[in-house]
């Protein structure tokens, strides 16, 4: 990683450690967000993603390490003004309308008068909630609440946005809507950290992805770099067999593969290896139901690096 530390660097985290009792939620994370970049933080639940985000917004005090936001300490007022935080929870006032919520959070950030009015109108438009501005939050659909939750994090027009799993619990249509909002931000050159445990989201939205597990970043790079580093030119074979699961799993493990959701996954250098694989399966007495050859993805990278599935 290039060691740039200037005030133009949106975010720089160095050797960050945060323990809760005996558990190290963040265990020495170092990463840097480049200007205008969307960096995905991909990892299963408990990987330390939220603790990292909460440390950056000053809600968690790290035990060790440093965080700088555009050259300022994370707990400084300059950092607070520069940072926009979209928490995983729906952090809204349910009995206030969309507009009232945005006005409240705007005022908490020191906005007022015409600037506040303009910011509220802009954020309502961004979240396509202009026509629901007078609706009470508790009456909104789940997807609308999510969008308003995002708008509330953007009300003070930050230069860097931290999004903590903003699509949790939303239907596919609303998720798509949220992706469009984020893509619009990206197009405007916003620097974004996007945490998720959905590989598809990281692949669609992020310029680079940091894979987190057990409080550490175990790999970082573009999607292609991560796959290349983990698999090189190898491909994956996904096969489904009939018969006893345990026997299949034991055979797959002995053959150097993984069983994921009942399917056997093998990494191969060349498609010609498939024939040998099938022959062995037949000899072992397994009946093949279906077979696919695919290019490895971030999910495969995670499995390759940790031996576990992303959604474990």
């Amino acid at each position, binding site marked *: 990683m290039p060691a740039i530390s200037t005030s133009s660097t949106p975010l720089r985290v160095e050797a960050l450690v945060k323990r809760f009792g005996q558990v190290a939620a963040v265990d020495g994370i170092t990463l840097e967000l480049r200007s205008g970049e969307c960096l995905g933080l991909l990892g299963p639940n408990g990987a330390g993603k939220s603790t990292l985000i*909460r440390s950056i917004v000053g*809600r*968690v*005090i790290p035990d060790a390490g440093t965080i700088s936001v555009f050259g300022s300490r994370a707990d400084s007022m300059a950092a607070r003004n520069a940072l926009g*935080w979209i928490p995983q*929870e729906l*952090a809204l006032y349910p009995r206030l309308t969309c507009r009232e919520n945005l006005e409240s959070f705007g005022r908490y950030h020191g906005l007022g008068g015409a600037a506040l009015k303009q910011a509220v109108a802009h954020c309502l438009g961004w979240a396509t909630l202009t026509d629901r501005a007078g609706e009470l939050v508790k009456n909104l659909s789940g997807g609308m609440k999510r969008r308003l939750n995002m708008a509330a994090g953007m009300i003070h027009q930050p230069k860097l946005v931290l999004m903590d799993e903003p699509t949790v619990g939303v239907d596919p249509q609303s998720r798509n809507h949220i992706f469009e909002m984020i893509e619009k931000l990206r197009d405007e050159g916003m620097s974004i950290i996007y945490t998720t445990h959905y590989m598809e989201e990281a692949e669609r939205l992020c310029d680079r992805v940091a894979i987190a597990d057990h409080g550490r970043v175990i790999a970082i790079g573009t999607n292609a770099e991560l796959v290349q580093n983990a698999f090189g030119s190898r491909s994956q074979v996904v096969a489904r067999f009939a018969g006893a699961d345990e026997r299949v799993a034991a055979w797959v493990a002995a053959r150097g593969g993984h069983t994921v959701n009942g399917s056997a996954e093998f990494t191969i250098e060349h498609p010609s290896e498939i024939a040998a694989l099938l022959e062995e399966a037949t000899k072992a007495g397994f009946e093949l139901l279906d077979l696919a050859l695919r290019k490895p993805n971030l999910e495969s990278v995670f499995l390759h690096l940790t031996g576990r599935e992303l959604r474990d």
Partner: protein
Amino acid sequence: MMIFAIVRSAMVSLKRDRAALALSFILPVVFFSIFATIFGGRHDSTPKVNVIVVDEDHSRASERLVAGLKQEASLVVKTRPETVKGVEQPEYTGATAEIAVREGAAPVAVIVPHGFGESPIALGPSDSNRPTIQLLEDSSDMVAPQMITGLLQKVAMTSMPDLMAEQGSRYFDQFAGGLTREQRERLDQGIRYLRERQDSGATSGSGGTGIVAVTARAVVGENKHNPMISFYAAAIGVMFLLFTASGAAGALLDEAESGTLDRVLSSRVTMTSLMLGKLIYNSFLAFTQLVVMFLWGWAVFKLDFWSHIPGFIVMGVCTALAVAAFGMLLASVCKTRAQLGALSTLIILIMSSIGGSMFPRFLMPEAMQKAGLLTINAWAIDGFTKIFWRDQPVSELWPQVLVLLGIAVVLFAVARRVARRWEFA
């Protein structure tokens, strides 16, 4: 089998729900104890009635009457105000005793007038020329004046037997020299009078009747339409203020749970400004509740609200601040809404019962009256009583104002300290 499984899971759930356990077992026991102590007549803690006694006569009879009153176990007789900085105060006079009753130093003052010793007791109809003992009473205390009136008659009987005999012999001289027609009429008149009194169930209260003639006069609340309305407006008001304040402060817990608190604290808002904002809002809410309560009292129960506005504002603001800070402390100590609900119910009901929101504190044993001073209720009710009942000027509210503001500051400071757990992880 399945039925027992249901019982078992319910019991395990209860065992792990400390709030429900406290409400189920601790609250009833505490309440039972409070009521039993107040109304159960435990001998070691029977409430004593304060009474101011002024002996203007200084005759043998008056001194013996005062001495007799002092011997009554149920009375605390005060002949002079409490010493101030070690300096003994002069004895009460009729005028200072009246002021003292107005100010609430005692619910009753007994004034033994000049000339009482010349004719201390009478067994017949009242003689309008006979000096009568004056009872200056605070009519908000419905028990003490009645009790003192009765005790005066008892003490007259027991502490002045020779006077009784003397008076008896006078009656004998008067009546025993052969019953003339006139004497018969007078005796009949006396008997008729006693019979009428007996039949009507009259007590030896006001009007100069009884063995010792007593005239009662209300010196506090004599012009009030309903003596207890202002008391209950304050008493019930404060109790509900406490409930509302703890409920409103619970918004902090909701916001902490929903993540809104985190979002707010990640803006320019600090924990101190957030909590000050909540304190102001909760105080405003409490003050508005008091206004509604007293306006209702004025509209429906003829409470004299409009002529006490300055005192009401002073007491209302101080009470509102104290209850708001109390609510915030409870909310910051609790981890969940359910916990807050249970804890606030427990504490508020106990505070309200010993603090005088459920029944006047003068009914309570002395120790409990003192314990009541640890509650917001007692100070708030005392302050409102001073304004609406005793018609005292705003300047007299300083002890209540100081204590309530002190409570507000201390509770808020502790709440702010406890709220550090929300500030950072």
